[in-house]
C-alpha cells in the first residue's frame, strides 16, 4: 500500500479579522496549499459573545480578511474553511458571516459552492439530556442543574473534523461553520485524505493561532506540510521562523495540560514528540500520537446574569486609603437599606453591588500578596448588577453619590472623597452574561447535532 500524499495546510491568521500581511498571503498563494483555514472565534473573551450572540470583531475587519481569502481561494481552487463564525459560533454568527461572504462574492464576481454548518442547540433539549445523565461537567466546572441549562440564551455544540468533512465531501469550496474546535478546521482535509491522526492533530494544534508560535508574534500565517510520519511548519512571512522551541511551546498556550489535548474523537499525546530544526525558518515534528476514544461533543452555554451599571473614580486622601475596608463595610450596610427602600429587591439576592480598589487588590482579589501596601492613590470601581437596566442605574446613582460623601472619623464635616472623571459617573453597560455550560455530551455520533446547508454562489 502506498503512503498517502502529503497535504499542505495554510493557517492564515490566529483569528479572522485580526489581519495578516499582504506579502505573506501572496507568498502563501505561490506555495499552493491544499486547503486554507482560519478560526473566527473563541470563548476566551468571556460569556458576553455567546450569551448575546454578538461578534467580537467588527464587520469591517472581517470583510478585509475574508475578501482577500476568497480571492486567494479562487486563485488556488482549494477549500476555504472558517470555524466558530461570529466569535461564539451561534446560528446568528454563521448567518452574519454568510451574508458578508455573499456580498463579497458579488462585489468580486466570484463563484463557489458555499457550505454552512449550524450547531446551536435548544436549551430545553440540553436540559432533558442533563436529566437523563447524557451530559458530564468538565473538570473545574461549577454545579449546573438542568434548570440552569434551560435558562441559557444560547447553547452551541462544538463540531469536530467530521462536520467539516461532511461539507468537503459535498464539494463545498467555502465552508462557514458554527462553533468548531480550532484544530478541526485544519485536520479535516488531511484526515479525509488518509493521513494519520497523530501528526494531523498535533499539526492542527500548532498552527491554530497562526504566526503566534513563530519568532514574530503577530497576526499572520503559517504553512504546514503533513505527511505519514510527521509535519513541518514555517511562517508565511520570510522575516520570521518556526523554531523547535517556539513550536514546542505553543502546546502550552491556553491549555491546562500541554501533553494530552482532547478532541471530540480522542486524545492527542504530544509527550513523545521530537522537534527538529530543518533550517532557521522551518521545524519538523515527529512522534505525535493520537488515541481514539468514544465520540464526545462539547457544549458551551451562556445565560443572562443581569444588567449592569458601573462607576469609576479615584481616591487620593491617605486617611481614606488607610481604612478602605471599614469605610466600604459601613456604606454597604447603608446601601442594603437603601436598595430595599428604592427597589422591590434585596441586596445580595437580586441586586449586587461590587466595589473594588485598583492599586490595592482589584486585580488579584484575595490572592493579592501585597494588599497591605497602601499606595498614594487608588482607583475605585463600582459595579451594580440588577434584573433591569433601570434598577441597576437607580442603585448606582445613590451608591456613587453616597460613597463620594461617606464620612471618615478624621474629618469633621461633609467630605468629597472620590474623584470622578465623568459626570454623570454612572455608565450603563447593558446585559451581562455568565457561562453556564462547558460540558460534554457522550453516547453521540459526530453529525447528529448539526445542520448543514449548501448553496451555489454564481457571479461574473
Amino acid at each position, binding site marked *: 500500500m502506498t503512503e498517502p500524499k502529503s497535504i499542505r495546510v495554510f493557517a492564515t491568521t490566529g483569528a479572522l479579522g485580526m489581519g495578516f500581511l499582504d506579502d505573506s498571503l501572496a507568498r502563501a498563494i505561490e506555495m499552493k496549499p491544499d486547503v486554507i483555514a482560519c478560526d473566527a472565534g473563541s*470563548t*476566551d*473573551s*468571556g*460569556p*458576553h459573545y455567546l450569551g448575546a450572540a454578538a461578534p467580537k470583531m467588527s464587520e469591517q475587519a472581517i470583510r478585509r480578511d475574508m475578501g482577500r481569502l476568497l480571492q486567494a481561494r479562487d486563485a488556488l481552487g482549494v477549500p476555504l474553511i472558517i470555524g466558530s463564525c461570529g466569535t461564539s459560533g451561534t446560528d446568528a454568527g454563521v448567518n452574519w458571516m454568510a451574508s458578508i461572504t455573499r456580498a463579497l462574492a458579488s462585489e468580486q464576481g466570484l463563484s463557489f459552492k458555499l457550505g454552512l454548518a449550524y450547531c446551536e442547540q435548544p436549551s430545553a433539549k440540553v436540559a432533558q439530556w442533563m436529566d437523563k445523565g447524557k451530559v458530564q461537567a*468538565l*473538570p*473545574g*466546572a*461549577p454545579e449546573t442543574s438542568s434548570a440552569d441549562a434551560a435558562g441559557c440564551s444560547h447553547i452551541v455544540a462544538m463540531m469536530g473534523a467530521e462536520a467539516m468533512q461532511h461539507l468537503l465531501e459535498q464539494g463545498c469550496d467555502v465552508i462557514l461553520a458554527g462553533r468548531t474546535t480550532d484544530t478541526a478546521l485544519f485536520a479535516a482535509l488531511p484526515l479525509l485524505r488518509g493521513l494519520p491522526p497523530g501528526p494531523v492533530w498535533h499539526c492542527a494544534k500548532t498552527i491554530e493561532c497562526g504566526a503566534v508560535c513563530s519568532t514574530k508574534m503577530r497576526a499572520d500565517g503559517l504553512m504546514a506540510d503533513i505527511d505519514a510520519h510527521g509535519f513541518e511548519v514555517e511562517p508565511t512571512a520570510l522575516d520570521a521562523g518556526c523554531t*523547535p*522551541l517556539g513550536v*514546542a*511551546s505553543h*502546546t*502550552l*498556550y*491556553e*491549555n*491546562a*495540560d*500541554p*501533553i494530552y489535548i482532547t478532541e471530540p474523537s480522542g486524545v492527542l499525546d504530544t509527550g513523545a*514528540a521530537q*522537534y527538529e530544526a530543518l533550517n532557521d525558518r522551518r521545524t519538523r515534528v515527529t512522534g505525535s500520537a493520537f488515541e481514539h476514544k468514544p465520540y464526545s461533543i462539547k457544549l458551551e452555554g451562556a445565560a443572562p*446574569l443581569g444588567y449592569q451599571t458601573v462607576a469609576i473614580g479615584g481616591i487620593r486622601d491617605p486617611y481614606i486609603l488607610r481604612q478602605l475596608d471599614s469605610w466600604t463595610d459601613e456604606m454597604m450596610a447603608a446601601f442594603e437599606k437603601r436598595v430595599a427602600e428604592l427597589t422591590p429587591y434585596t441586596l445580595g439576592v437580586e441586586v*449586587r453591588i*461590587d466595589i*473594588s480598589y485598583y492599586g490595592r487588590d*482589584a*486585580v*488579584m*482579589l*484575595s*490572592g493579592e*500578596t501585597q494588599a497591605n501596601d497602601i499606595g498614594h492613590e487608588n482607583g475605585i470601581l463600582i459595579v451594580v*448588577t440588577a434584573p433591569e437596566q433601570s434598577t441597576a442605574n437607580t442603585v448606582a446613582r445613590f451608591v456613587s453619590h453616597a460613597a463620594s460623601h461617606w464620612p471618615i472619623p478624621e474629618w469633621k464635616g461633609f467630605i468629597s472623597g472620590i474623584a470622578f472623571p465623568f459626570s454623570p459617573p454612572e455608565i450603563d453597560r447593558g446585559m*451581562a*452574561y*455568565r*457561562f453556564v455550560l*462547558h460540558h460534554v455530551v457522550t453516547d453521540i455520533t459526530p453529525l447528529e447535532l448539526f445542520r448543514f446547508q449548501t448553496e451555489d454562489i454564481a457571479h461574473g
Partner: protein
Amino acid sequence: MAEVIQATTLGELASLVRSKNAGPFWVTFDVMFDTDSDFQRVVASQVINKAWVAATWEIPLQDIVLVELPAARAIKFSFPRQRVQGDPGESDQYSGQQYAPLLGLVIR
C-alpha cells in the same frame, strides 16, 4: 576557577512569565527560559512546587497540575479559577495579570 552563580529572581531569569485562561474554568501559568541551563537551574531549585502554588493562590493542593517541559524550556502549572470567567465579581476576564507573585521568587 568555578563560576560564581549570583542569586537572582525568577522575574530576572525567565524569558517569559505569563498567566492566561485555559477555558473559562481554569487558569494556567507558563514560565519560560532562554537557555537550558536557566531552565534546569530553576527546576533544580524546586521553588515552583505545588505546595507553594497552593499557598500563594489559596487553592487545594490536589487541584493543581504542574509539569516541566524541557522541549519548551518551560514550567507550567494550572488550577481551577476561583470563579468562572465573567461571574459576578470578575476582576480579570483573561486571567492575564495573575502571575506577579512568581516574579520575586529567589533563585540561588
